């Protein structure tokens, strides 16, 4: 098991915006089925790193290597744009903090889920509709709402719909940017439980960017702590949270109010 190849590898990834170094030499590996949290305050570079991993931002330096379902290792930023998009459609998913960025607000809920299946190659209408219904049930959206557009949904429902849209194609890797940000606490708990059980059931690898250490503890096997663009600590999630080594990790952990 230890000899298994990583699914994704960031190798000294650096991103700068003009003279500002947003991410400096970030390196890590992610193995199949593993959940990794990237934590840090706003401005720490965690979302920029996530977008570089997703291929939206091209790093100034370093590489992101991905092992495809076919077993080929590719350098994401050297792939042709159509090839990268094809991978993003079939093997990856991206869950945005704001569901409006990940959903088509005027298309029905069922359409939002079905569309992604069609993009991945599904053609049979009846099967697509049945699959969409199944996924709405899995994310606890009443089947009676299948023809309603998500703009008529609450924030929590929209976020669950976005998760269904992303997971319906059973991606191998899901990237999530503050998936519970902006939701009420009670709604957050439901969403977290859902993410936790779906990721576990499907054996998906995930990278979750969050500023919420409790989210990291609940969902992630491992975590990275970022400060001013640098990964200052990494390790087993509960070890980093209970026995943080770096001064900044100690500050983060000690700043959380115990509820």
């Amino acid at each position, binding site marked *: *098991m*230890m000899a298994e190849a990583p699914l994704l590898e960031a190798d000294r990834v650096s991103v700068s915006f003009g003279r500002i170094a947003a991410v400096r030499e970030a390196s890590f590996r992610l*193995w199949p089925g*593993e959940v990794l949290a990237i934590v840090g305050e706003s401005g720490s570079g965690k979302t920029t790193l996530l977008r570089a991993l997703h291929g939206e931002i091209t790093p100034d330096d370093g590489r992101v290597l991905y092992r495809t379902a076919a077993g080929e290792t590719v350098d994401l930023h050297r792939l042709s744009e159509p090839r990268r998009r094809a991978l993003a459609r079939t093997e990856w998913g991206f869950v945005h903090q704001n569901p409006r960025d990940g959903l088509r607000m005027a298309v029905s809920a069922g359409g939002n889920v079905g569309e992604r299946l069609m993009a991945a190659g599904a053609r049979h209408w009846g099967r697509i509709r049945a699959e969409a219904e199944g996924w709405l049930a899995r994310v606890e959206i009443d089947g009676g709402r299948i023809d309603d557009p998500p703009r008529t949904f609450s924030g929590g429902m929209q976020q669950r719909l976005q998760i269904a849209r992303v997971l319906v194609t059973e991606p191998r890797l899901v990237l999530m940017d503050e998936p519970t940000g902006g939701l009420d606490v009670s709604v957050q*708990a*439901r969403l*977290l*439980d859902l993410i*936790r059980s779906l990721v576990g059931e499907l054996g998906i690898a995930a990278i979750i960017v969050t500023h919420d250490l409790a989210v990291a503890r*609940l969902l992630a*096997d*491992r975590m990275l702590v970022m400060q001013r663009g640098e990964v200052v600590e990494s*390790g*087993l999630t*509960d*070890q980093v949270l*209970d*026995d943080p*080594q*770096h*001064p900044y990790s*100690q*500050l983060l952990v*000690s700043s959380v109010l115990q509820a």
Partner: protein
Amino acid sequence: MSAPVLKVEGLAKSFTLHLQGGRRLPVLHGIDLAVAPGDCVALVGPSGAGKSTLMRALYGNYLAGEGRILVSHDGAMVDIASGDPRLIVSVRRRTIGYVSQFLRVIPRVSTLAIVAEPARRAGLGEAEAIERSRTLLARLNLPEALWDLPPATFSGGEQQRVNLARGFAYPYPIMLLDEPTASLDPANRAVVIGLIEEAKARGAAMVGIFHDREVREAVATRSIEVTPLRAEAA
């Protein structure tokens, strides 16, 4: 006696408090320990001596400073003190079980699902994991009416029994028990003594902190004294 499945060699652990001017608190130094199948080692010593720190280091929850923590895992001795997260995840899944004093409650997840989760992750089938969980919850006298509720609102003693059921639902070769009977009544304490005796009989190697003398005398095959180290100035 059979070969140890848990071997600690020269373990040291200190905490550096960066927010308190880099003050360094040495807690453990030169710890050696070997635990064989069927052994139940009780850690004894005054409060603050580092017993819980040692337990957490054995589980990979605290990073060891020096030394080795060798564990027999999937047919080889591996070193937890290396801090390799993937190794520790794998060791925790099938080799080391941990019963802590406090239950970490997950919102919305039922008691039965919380108890069955580690057994399922260890590789038991769904039906078997649930069956074992039900048997243990019943044995620990947790009313069946509570099994489908999340344990957030349970009493301390009820939560501890959920934790115990969770820890004993899978037959781990190594088990760490941190005050497993702290908030239990005598009847349930007797149940826990029974569970520990059965685990020893099937060959589990165990390390525990038992403040309750009666429990300790009933289950421990020997005791190890953990002595406090003096704090140094930064």
